C-alpha cells in the first residue's frame, strides 16, 4: 500500500508500575500525515502509551522512536526540541489554574520565541477554532469541564505542531460539541497537515476522525487496521469493544469496566 513514511514507532514497549504491568510488548507504527485512533478499555494503558512519545514516561524495555530518534536516549536539549514539535491534549485538560486562558495558550508560544503580536493572533485564532472566542481573560476555574477540554485543544493547536496527541478529546462533551470537535480535528489535520494520535472510547468519533484504528488490549495491540477493517473485524475482543456489549468487560478481564 504505497510508500508510507513511518514517523512514530513503538517497538515492544514494556512498562510496569510496581506490580501493575501496563504495557507488555506494545508495538505500533504511525505513518506521516495520518490520524490513528487508539481504543481500549479504561485502565488499559492508552494514556501511558501516549506519555512515552513525549518522554514523560520511559519504557522499562523496548523503545519509542519519533522522527528517527529514540526518545529515551535524548538529552535535555533534544527532548525540548522534540517536545516543541508535539502538541499534547491532556485527558483532563491540565490547564494552568493560576493563569488566564490567554496565558495558558501563550505560555508554549512564548517558549517558541514568537512576537507578542503573533502570540495574540494565535490565541485569538485557536480560541475561535474551538468556539471559545472571547474567553481570553477567563480563568480555568470559571470554565466547565468541556470548555476546559477545548482550551486544552486550543493550547495544543496554537503551537502549530507537527504531531498532535489527543487524550480523549471528546469524552465528557455534549453530542453537538463532540461532533464539532471531531470536525475540528479533521480540519486541523487538513489545514496543518499534522500527524495525529487520538485516544478515545468513542467509536463514533474514532470512525469519523481516524484513518486507522488500533485496539490496545492486555498491554499489546490486539488489532490495527483501517476503519473498514476494524468495523469488519472478526476478532471477538475487538467486536465486543466496538459494539459496546457489556459481557465484553467481564470476558476480557479488563481492570475496570468501561463506563
Amino acid at each position, binding site marked *: 500500500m504505497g510508500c508510507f513514511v513511518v514517523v512514530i514507532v513503538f517497538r515492544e514497549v514494556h512498562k510496569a508500575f510496581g506490580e501493575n504491568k501496563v504495557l507488555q510488548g506494545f508495538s505500533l507504527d504511525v505513518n506521516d500525515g495520518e490520524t490513528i485512533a487508539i481504543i481500549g478499555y479504561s485502565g488499559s494503558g492508552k494514556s501511558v502509551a501516549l506519555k512515552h512519545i513525549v518522554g*514523560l514516561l520511559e519504557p522499562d524495555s523496548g523503545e519509542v522512536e519519533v522522527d528517527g530518534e529514540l526518545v529515551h536516549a535524548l538529552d*535535555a536539549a533534544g527532548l525540548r526540541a522534540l*517536545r516543541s514539535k*508535539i502538541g*499534547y491534549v*491532556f*485527558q483532563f485538560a491540565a490547564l*494552568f489554574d493560576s493563569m488566564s486562558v490567554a496565558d495558558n495558550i501563550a*505560555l508554549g508560544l512564548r*517558549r517558541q520565541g514568537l512576537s507578542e503580536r503573533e502570540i495574540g493572533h494565535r490565541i485569538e485564532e485557536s480560541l475561535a477554532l474551538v468556539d471559545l472566542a472571547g474567553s481570553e481573560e477567563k480563568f480555568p476555574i470559571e470554565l466547565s469541564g468541556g470548555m476546559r477540554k477545548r482550551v486544552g485543544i486550543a493550547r495544543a493547536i496554537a503551537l502549530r505542531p507537527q504531531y498532535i496527541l489527543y487524550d480523549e478529546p471528546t469524552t465528557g462533551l455534549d453530542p453537538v460539541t463532540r461532533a464539532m470537535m471531531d470536525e475540528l480535528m479533521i480540519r486541523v489535520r487538513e489545514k496543518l497537515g499534522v500527524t495525529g494520535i487520538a485516544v478515545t472510547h468513542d467509536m463514533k468519533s474514532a470512525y469519523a476522525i481516524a484513518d486507522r484504528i488500533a485496539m490496545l488490549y492486555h498491554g499489546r495491540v490486539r488489532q490495527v487496521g483501517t476503519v473498514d477493517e476494524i468495523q469488519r473485524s472478526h476478532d471477538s475482543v475487538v467486536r465486543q469493544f466496538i459494539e459496546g456489549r457489556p459481557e465484553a468487560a467481564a470476558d476480557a478481564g479488563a481492570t475496570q469496566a468501561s463506563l
Partner: protein
Amino acid sequence: MQKVITDQVAELLAGFGRLGNFVGDMARSLRDFKVWLGLTAVQMRRIGVDSLPISLLVAAFTGVVLALLSRYIFTGAVPMYFVGTLVGKAIMMELGPVLVCLALAGRVGASIAAELGTMRVTEQVDALETLAYDIQSFLVVPRVIAATLMFPVIVAFAVTAGLLTGWLTSVTLIDLSTVDFLKGLRLFYQFKDIWFGLLKSMSFGFTIALIGCMKGLNTRGGAEGVGRATTQAVVVSAGMILVLDALWAVLLL
C-alpha cells in the same frame, strides 16, 4: 531490629542522594536565566506578602517574653541594663531567625509543596514539560532563589519588631530607662550579631523552598498525596532548620 535500623539508614542516605541529584539539576538550570528571572520577582513578592505578618507577630511576642525573662534572671545579680544585651543578642542571633523560619516552614514550605503537589497530580507539571519548559528553571529555581533572598529581609524586619517590643516592655513593665536599654543593647554588639542571623535565615529559606519543591513535585496520588507531601515538607524542613542551626553554631560561634 538490626534490619529495621539498616533499612532506615539506607532510606535516609537514599533521601540525601535524591536531594543531591535535585540540587544538581537545579544548579544546571541556573543557565536558563531568561526563564527564571522574571518568575523569581513574582515569587519574592508572594513570599514577602505571605510571610511578613506572621513573622512580625512571632518576633514581637518573643521580644516581650525575652525582656521579662531577662528581668527574672538578672534581678539582684546583674545590672538591669543587661536586659538590653540579652534581648538584642537572643533575638538577632537565635530566636528571631529560628522561630520565624520555623513558622515560615509552615507557611512558605507548605504552600510551595501544596501548589506544586496539586500541579503534579493534575498533570500541570506534565503539561509544562510538553510545552518544552524545564520544570527546574520554571518552577523550582524561582522559588528557591526567592526564598533565599527574601528570608533574610523578612527576618530583618521581624528582628526589628522584636527589638521594639523588647524595648517597649522594658520601659513599661520593667522600669528600665530607654538609655539603659540602649546601653545594654550596644554593650557587646558586634557586626557578627547581625550577619550571623541573616546568613542562617538565608540557609533556612533555601532549605524550606528546596524541600517544599521536592516534596511537591514527588507527590503521588490525588488530594491525599498532596496532603501527605505538604505535611512532610513542613516536618522535614523544620527538622532541617534545627540541624542547620546547630551546625552554624558549631561552625561559626
